[in-house]
């Protein structure tokens, strides 16, 4: 096969590309330039936009003896990922930009360009498994539960998965690092990336202040009593406890959490932990990792990256899904994705619009 290996400059994508070469594929490396103004040097933080990363990716391609190119996707990334991220926060939601990048950039813009240029598939260093099933290729969790990235790939459609390769899904991370060292790849000891790549200093609040400005507003409790002030609703996420700086203690003296964010009135509502409990999630823009699954069925659902799977029933239609949790869960933020699993297999995903508590309603 002619394989396009997306090489971020990190250890995972380098080993993924190496395994594709070993498997006998005709591999070409591409590094995606996602930032219009790459940082010349950065310490500590890691991401996918720096000069150092494009250099590391190129050196890995050199070591593998494969052609290597840099593709400028900064305009697509700005529109589809960065502006989406800002707009979501402006609307009081909590987006997941890595998921958007997979959906719109890596497995859309890059895949489309690669297929048109004569490649058969895109390979990445994501930890997830592709399994051939009765209805085509299925997306499964990685064997390393700590590294499993099936959640951020949950937005991919069956058609996208059919042209994707995840060569690391069967390996624990430690093995990937050891393999990189054994192969003589210079990135073997490079730290993992954790930050949002377009916010290299990790200060999301400051980034959003620059984009959205600051605007003072009220922090209120459930009955509307003002209990504090804030300088921008975008600083908050549903379920957040820290950073509220409330002047007035709760009547029962217990910690309070963000329950709701209203961007229109610039108001943040807080309350006790139990008020965060929800058991019904309404989510829109569904995508299916295999055949569409309309109707009512049992599943487990993951509501945030690295979250625990929760037992649930799903009511699915063309417009979206309603997820009825078996037990109430806490701190589920609109804007995040629900990814629906059948055991280890990803069935589909949707973006959370709202939550409710049936018992309380």
């Amino acid at each position, binding site marked *: 096969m002619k394989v396009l290996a997306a090489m971020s400059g990190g250890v995972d994508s380098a080993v993924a590309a190496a395994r594709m070469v070993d498997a006998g594929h005709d591999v070409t490396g591409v590094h995606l330039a996602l930032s219009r103004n790459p940082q010349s040097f950065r310490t500590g933080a890691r991401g996918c936009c720096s000069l150092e990363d*494009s250099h590391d990716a190129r050196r890995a391609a050199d070591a593998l003896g494969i052609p290597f*190119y840099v*593709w400028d996707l900064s305009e697509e990334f700005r529109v*589809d990922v960065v502006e989406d991220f800002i707009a979501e926060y402006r609307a009081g939601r909590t987006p997941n930009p890595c998921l958007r990048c997979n*959906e719109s950039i890596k497995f859309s*813009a890059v895949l*489309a360009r690669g297929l*048109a240029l004569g490649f058969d598939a895109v390979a990445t260093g994501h930890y997830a498994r592709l399994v051939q099933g009765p209805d085509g290729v299925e997306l499964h969790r990685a064997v390393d539960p700590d590294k499993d990235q099936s959640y951020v790939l949950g937005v991919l459609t069956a058609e996208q998965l059919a042209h994707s390769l995840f060569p690391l899904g069967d390996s624990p991370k430690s093995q990937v690092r050891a393999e990189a060292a054994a192969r003589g790849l210079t990135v073997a000891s490079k730290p993992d990336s954790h930050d949002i790549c377009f916010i290299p200093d990790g200060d999301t609040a400051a980034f959003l202040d620059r984009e959205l400005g600051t605007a003072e507003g009220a922090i209120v409790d459930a009955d509307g009593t003002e209990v504090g002030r804030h300088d921008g609703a975008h600083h908050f996420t549903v379920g957040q406890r820290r950073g509220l700086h409330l002047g007035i203690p709760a009547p029962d003296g217990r910690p309070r959490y963000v329950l709701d964010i209203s961007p229109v009135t610039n108001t943040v509502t807080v309350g006790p932990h139990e008020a965060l409990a929800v058991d019904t999630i309404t989510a829109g823009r569904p995508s299916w990792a295999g055949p569409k699954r309309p109707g009512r069925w049992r599943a487990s659902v993951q509501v945030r990256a690295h979250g625990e799977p929760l037992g649930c029933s799903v009511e699915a239609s063309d417009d979206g899904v309603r997820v009825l949790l078996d037990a109430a869960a806490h701190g589920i933020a609109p804007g995040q994705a629900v990814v629906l699993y059948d055991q280890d297999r990803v069935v589909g995903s949707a973006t959370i619009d709202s939550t409710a508590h049936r018992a309380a309603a």
Partner: protein
Amino acid sequence: MWARSGLVGNASSLHASGRAARRVLEEAREEVAAALGAHPTELVFTSGGTEGDNLAVHGSWIARRAAGPGEPHGRPRVLLSSIEHHALHDLVPALVRDGAVVDRLPVRPDGIADPAVLAGALAGAAGRETAVASLMWVNNETGAVQPVQALAEACRSAGAWSHSDAVQAVGHVPFDFAASGLDLATVTAHKVGGPVGIGALLVRRGVSPAPIVFGGGQERGIRSGTLAPVLAVGFAAAVVEAVARLEEHAARWRRLRTRLLDGLAGLPDVRPHLPETASPSLVNVAFLGCEADDLLLLLDAAGVDASVGSACTAGVSRTSHVLLAAGLAEDEARSTLRFSFGAETGEADVDTLLRVLPEALERARRARGATFGSRR
């Protein structure tokens, strides 16, 4: 034994190996100068084209910006064509930061500077304030041969120094420094098949750009730094060969160029950029409706080397300022590739290109704007 060969010594040293190195270096200087129509004392060795360009323009401006002996009014202005190599194009912000007045000379749609416009840009008060004017001899992207004699004449009337980046001229078109009338010309070894890492700035007697790096005062105090005799020997051998075989190579390149252009004529929406005067060794073509990057990838995979404008440090290709200066729309500039012929290129190479091009072009056109999946 190596020390006595003169290839590894320090030509500034006084002992025997130093003398041997100096002799090798000076013999190389004489050979290069003779091949280029210059006197040996007019040749300043450099590390290559970038340094030569910077030394010529930045050094001349530093030497002449302020009033001084023989320079009653000072010359704060630099005139650069809009199609210079990055070695000069990217010098502009540094010149401006240091207080220079930088004007850019436009080019016609075929990428050639108009001699009348050139004369106008150096007439009157502007000319009297100009320290140095620079126009590259042969453009590296379009192959356009520029009216450098007109530059030399206009500069002489204005009292400005004239410089030409001749990196792509030597070995490709007839080059004679003395006959050109230029004050300064930049050349480099690796563009004529010599080693990477050495070049020369030709400096007419009486012209003295200020140094831009400081040290041991080698090369008449204009360019400090220990020189590598072994590179100078390679430079001399390459330039002598390239100049001697110019007519033979040029005749072959003209045939290849015609063959390539004839082949391209049968492809849809392919627009060669053909300057009125052009180097025979280069063909610059717009493949409308595709990204040149994509076509380059496909041709590379098929064993054909082509080039796009240039790339930034991270490796992202930049839209060519040269093509934009010639008035091309951004889209057309981004769809443009160039093919260069070398000492070894033959008919079979052109035929290979013409064989793989139709399919590559079709694929590259399909790739542009392609979308997949649920991209919103």
